[in-house]
């Protein structure tokens, strides 16, 4: 019984996450093509400059729509709790794979929570500024100064978003078991206990100092 894996993400959550991820990759590559001349070659992935310009905003809006789905699913689990402050203070130990003195945390660690709220902020800024600079449909409703400001904010928010996602992807590579959790949904009990102990206790009903289970002995 104690070896039974735990379902961390159900099929809808996984699908939603990967839809956002795919759209992010597309929006980021097309956006980077317009971000700096050194990356303009990325526009060829989308059929050339004009197609990149045409597709990018649609991909962005779609990404936002699906991201709202993720927010509705996960925002409750991303409220900060008391242990999070100490966890953040001990981030250096976390980074060194040391567990001594790192407090137990819930379904998401404070790093993931910060990422969640950063992504939400970036997505909102990107959506609003993106509409303002969407020349084909909306820019004519805005003043040149607001377009200039929106252009700058769009690039800034995109930069923060890309950096955050680089960290997010690396965390998935670094913490073994988390990528597969998002791919097929399941984590081992040991994984849950090691990385998200409060969540583990919550879903399994285990007490912190549970009686010894040693039926295999």
């Amino acid at each position, binding site marked *: 019984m*104690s*070896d039974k894996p735990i379902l961390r993400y159900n099929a809808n959550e996984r699908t939603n996450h990967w839809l956002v991820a795919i759209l992010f990759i597309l929006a980021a590559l097309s956006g980077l*093509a*317009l*971000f*700096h*001349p*050194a*990356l*303009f070659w990325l*526009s060829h992935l989308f059929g*050339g*400059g*004009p197609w*990149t*310009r045409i597709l990018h905003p649609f991909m962005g809006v779609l990404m936002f729509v699906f991201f709202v789905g993720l927010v509705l699913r996960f925002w409750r689990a991303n409220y900060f709790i008391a242990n999070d402050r100490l966890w953040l203070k001990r981030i250096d130990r976390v*980074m*060194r*794979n040391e567990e001594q003195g790192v407090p137990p945390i819930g379904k998401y660690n404070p790093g993931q929570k910060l990422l969640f709220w950063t992504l939400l902020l970036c997505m909102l800024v990107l959506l609003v500024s993106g509409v303002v*600079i969407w*020349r*084909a449909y909306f*820019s004519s409703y805005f003043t*040149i*100064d607001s*377009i*200039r*400001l929106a*252009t*700058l904010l769009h*690039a800034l928010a995109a*930069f923060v978003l*890309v*950096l955050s996602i*680089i*960290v997010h*992807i*690396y965390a998935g*590579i*670094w*913490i*073994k*078991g988390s990528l597969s959790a998002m791919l097929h949904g399941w984590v*081992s*009990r*040991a*994984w849950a*206990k*090691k*990385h998200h102990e409060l969540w583990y206790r919550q879903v399994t009903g*285990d007490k*912190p*100092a*549970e*009686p*010894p*289970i*040693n039926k*295999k*002995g």
Partner: protein
Amino acid sequence: MASQDIIARSATTTPPSSIRQLEEVAKLIDTTKCIGCKACQVACSEWNELRDEVGHNHGTYDNPQDLSAESWTLMRFTEHETDDGNLEWLIRKDGCMHCADPGCLKACPSPGAIIQHANGIVDFNQDHCIGCGYCITGCPFNIPRISQKDHKAYKCTLCSDRVSVGLEPACVKTCPTGAIVFGSKQDMKEHAAERIVDLKSRGFDNAGLYDPDGVGGTHVMYVLHHADTPRLYAGLPDQPVISPLVGLWKGVSKPLALLAMGAAVLAGFFHYVRIGPQRVEEDEHPSPPDSSVQVVDPAVHVYDPNQPGGQGEQRP
């Protein structure tokens, strides 16, 4: 079509083909001689084979109301009452100023869509234009327009096709009062200086040349009766500069941002190399973290007092 006189090229970080030296040219528009006949608008339309839609009368002489992808130049009429009660009819031929430091070119993300020739002409190459409209964002004079038909940006070319074969721009050729003249930038400045002396002698004490430094000077210049207040002329900017927002957006921040993104990827890679992945022992099973009962498994010979039941535990 080999161009060897290109001194700046949009979204290009290496030197463009700029071996050919050309004298800087300029178009000088003398607002004090302009009678607002719009012959220049017609000549522009004729030469460039542009046929804008016929619009509506909005109660002013401005016709069309604004520049468009098919109207590259436009007379803007302003009624200005001077302090001593004189009514002045200020007429300014609006269009691309061909800045020495072009904001459109700086903002453009598409390599080669905007080029600047050695003679000072800033030209759009619609073949490379992707229609993003960044040139509009970058322009301090509100000149480029995106066509709703082909979604490419258009503006006055200073008749680069005519100038390249030694002709003057079409608007210059047609102007019946000589209010528009064309030549080397130096000659135009000298011509303007003479005009300004004349205007001052006629009581226009603030007459002057509009060749704003903020954009490095322009290759379309105005003689103004009121050079101290260019904004009188239908909002001609007093101190045009590329917006600091655009400067920040397109300046040093983007290479730095790219560097930061690359650094983040590298940091992750080396974290993995130096610290390594965080694994859960696959055969680790939940054990009492702090049990008062010591369960002795005869097969286990490892005892770590610091990690009772921790990951160092070995299973039989």
